[in-house]
């Protein structure tokens, strides 16, 4: 398939000819920061790193890669949690962080047009003085880039009400491996033809390189209120999630933390969470003043009816921020409990929350690895954090195996192996359980439509059928694969 070019200095020379010297990195020490993304357990030294400063340079890099049949791995800010930006040992790591211009904020049309390297939070900061903001807020929003958000279809705390990246992006400019620039959508709410906008969003850099993003801006809500409820059991907390939704309210965010996560957060930042609770819910409402007044009264009623042992609501903005503190610090707080943790990302139907959390408890005992749960309960998007010690022999493998079981469980109850972190390299095996061979083949054919030589981020997001056959997760019907004549890749 791909020519092995690791020793081919002519490709480096070609890259150096089209890029300024400081944009081509071959020195091992300088390449070191690029060997991993947010999934730090997975490391691979890239063959060469390029950091183009213009779209034209990106186009030239793609040309060189295409002509020399060199794999291209795109990378945004490197905060991804599924190894989607893991470099190829024989490929070019294409960093887009230097394309970081905010091209335009258009308050009347309520859009921002930005380059892919612009940080998520920087968009809201630039729009703030117009009273507007960009809604999706992944936890890494200080650092993560909008190009990476598009590639991963990132979510965040507030996607229950405001949706994922796919619901908030209106336009893209994309370069394909063949050098075509596609303008997909723009400032209008829709565009004719196939919905390439949805297709590219969440495509994990497998179809093309995003060079410009137009996002929808929303008015900053007039009022926000956060409510906290403590519960004596996981079941009571999980049941309340469904009851709030069933009462006709869509909270801006609805988060849950279990006892271990609460204890860790309290020890770390002392946000004043009740440490004797089995679980807490954090429910944020936003809207006009009157709207929030009425709905919060309703939410508090539901919480009390559901046997909350304690209920409180933020009194003002400072109080609200204090109450969020523990949730926002939960991941680093859990990080203090063990040398390492492994963050999972399955999504399940809300009604199965309690049952799945109990099953995770059992797995935790079985594997002898502690788990803390802090997650987006309103979306059913779980983030079990499996605690382990990478230096203890076999613990990482055990954590990964347990994680795989959790994801299989998510699929079994009607959910998915990834809600917002992407498949990357991390969940390739789990994909074999979620999709049957004909679906995986359809994915591969779809990719080939944009990338016939399969040089874009190879080996990510969609497992080969051979790999699935190996992990035994393949759906084999009547002892044989569908369409045995088709090439397996």
């Amino acid at each position: 398939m791909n020519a092995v070019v690791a020793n081919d200095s002519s490709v480096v020379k070609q890259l150096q000819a089209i890029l300024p010297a400081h944009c081509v990195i071959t020195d091992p020490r300088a390449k070191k920061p690029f060997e991993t993304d947010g999934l730090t357990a997975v490391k691979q030294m890239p063959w060469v790193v390029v950091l183009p400063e213009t779209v034209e340079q990106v186009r030239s890099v793609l040309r060189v890669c295409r002509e020399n049949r060199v794999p291209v791995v795109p990378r945004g800010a490197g905060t991804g949690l599924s190894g989607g930006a893991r470099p190829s040992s024989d490929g070019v790591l294409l960093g887009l962080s230097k394309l970081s211009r905010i091209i335009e904020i258009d308050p009347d049309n309520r859009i921002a047009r930005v380059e892919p390297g612009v940080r998520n939070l920087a968009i809201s900061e630039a729009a703030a003085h117009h009273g507007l903001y960009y809604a999706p807020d992944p936890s890494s929003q200080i650092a993560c880039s909008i190009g990476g958000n598009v590639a991963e279809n990132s979510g965040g705390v507030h996607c229950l009400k405001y949706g994922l990246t796919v619901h908030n992006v209106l336009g893209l400019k994309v370069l394909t491996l063949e050098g075509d620039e596609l303008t997909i959508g723009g400032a209008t709410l829709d565009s004719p033809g196939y919905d390439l906008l949805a297709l590219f969003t969440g495509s994990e850099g497998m179809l093309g390189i995003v060079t410009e993003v137009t996002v929808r801006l929303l008015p900053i809500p007039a009022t926000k209120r956060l409510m906290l409820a403590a519960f004596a059991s996981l079941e009571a907390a999980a049941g309340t999630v469904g009851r709030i939704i069933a009462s006709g309210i869509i909270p801006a965010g609805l988060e849950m933390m279990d006892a271990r996560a609460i204890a860790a957060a309290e020890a770390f930042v002392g946000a004043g969470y009740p440490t004797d609770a089995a679980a807490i819910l954090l429910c944020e409402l936003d809207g006009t003043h009157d709207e929030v007044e009425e709905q919060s009264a309703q939410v508090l009623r539901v919480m009390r009816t559901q046997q909350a042992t304690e209920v409180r609501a933020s009194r003002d903005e400072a109080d609200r921020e204090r109450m969020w503190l523990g949730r926002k610090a939960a991941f680093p707080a859990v990080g203090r409990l063990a040398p390492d943790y492994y963050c999972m990302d399955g999504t399940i139907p809300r009604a199965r929350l309690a049952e799945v959390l109990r099953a995770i408890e059992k797995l935790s005992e079985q594997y002898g690895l502690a788990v803390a749960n802090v997650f987006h309960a309103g979306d059913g998007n779980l983030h079990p954090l499996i605690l382990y010690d990478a230096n203890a022999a076999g613990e990482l493998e055990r954590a990964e195996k347990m994680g795989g079981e959790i994801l299989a469980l998510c699929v079994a109850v009607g959910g998915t192996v990834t809600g917002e972190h992407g498949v990357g390299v991390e969940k390739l095996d789990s994909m074999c359980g979620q999709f049957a061979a004909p679906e995986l083949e359809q994915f591969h054919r779809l990719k080939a439509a944009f990338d016939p030589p399969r040089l874009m981020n190879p080996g990510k997001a969609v497992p080969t059928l051979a790999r699935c056959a190996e992990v035994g997760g393949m759906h084999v019907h009547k002892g044989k694969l569908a369409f045995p004549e088709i090439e397996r890749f």
Partner: protein
Amino acid sequence: MARDRDDSERLIAAVAAAAGNERPLVICGRGSKTFLAPPAVGSMLAVGDHSGVVDYRHDELVLTARAGTPLVELRRILASQEQMLAFDPPMFAGDGSLGGAVATGLSGPGRPWYGATRDAVLGVTLINGRAERLVFGGQVMKNVAGYDVSRLMTGAFGTLGVLLDISVKVLPRPHHEATRVFDVDRDTALANVTAWARTPLPLSATCHVDGVLHVRLSGTEKGVRAAAAQVGGDDLPHSADFWDSVRDQTHAFFSVGRCYRVALPPAATYPAIPGDWLTEWAGSQRWFRTDATREQVDLAVRRLGGYATEFRDPRGPQPFDKGALKYYRRLKDAFDPKAILNRGRLFQEIGQDAVTEASV
């Protein structure tokens, strides 16, 4: 009452037969939106009998139904739980199916605030052109496993697959609604709506037609009342009828003349071409009745950063991005290599040409 019937085996067999002898199929739900695009060629594949709700849990905000399920039936079931199809698809001539709504991708008056059809689609089961039954997405809100094929099917006019089952996100019906009306010209209306859309008001629809601006507010009772006081205007009683007439195009505006659907950046000015406008979606979707030529309309709208389509009986090529067509053909080939599904309905010249290109 819609029949509850799983017709998928017959449909798969029909697609397999068509793929085998390379005879194209025209997919037909309830036939209410046939006029939206050029006719496909081939023999009819009726999916209307594949009907019924497969799963509906109101506290999950998810409904799964077979493609042939009538929209009117879904609306009735959801209303019984105080919920709604947030994308509020049109029911032309009072009819339409869920599959047709998703395949055509049209959304109702609340689209800028409640999201489009594609935003609500969570998962699909489909038959591709190889007669394989494939499942993509699911019944959960957040799902990034694999490419977003479910949303790719939305607005694809059946050219990439026959939709079997569809899961959509549904929303609670707002507790309270009010429609305020204002006698203003279209430019004033656009300026007012643009200003309101920049502020956190509980807007859920706008429409300017015949010198009257209609603004719908949705939310809690107190919230809507406060917002109504803020924007002013007069109350329009029985406003649901008005919004339905805009959505389903039974409003008198749509009864005469050629009509273009014009998608524009919301605050864009009106093109200087004589004609009558009906403007929705805070300016993003406008309907234009005019005697001007298609070329004149197209050019003027493009200059403003939008695109125009002749809504009923469109002729000529769709205003696709030029560079995209190559990839459309390859996508078509990836799902339907023999081009048997709704051939010619979305774009022309698929078939041998496309196959050659994609095998590069």
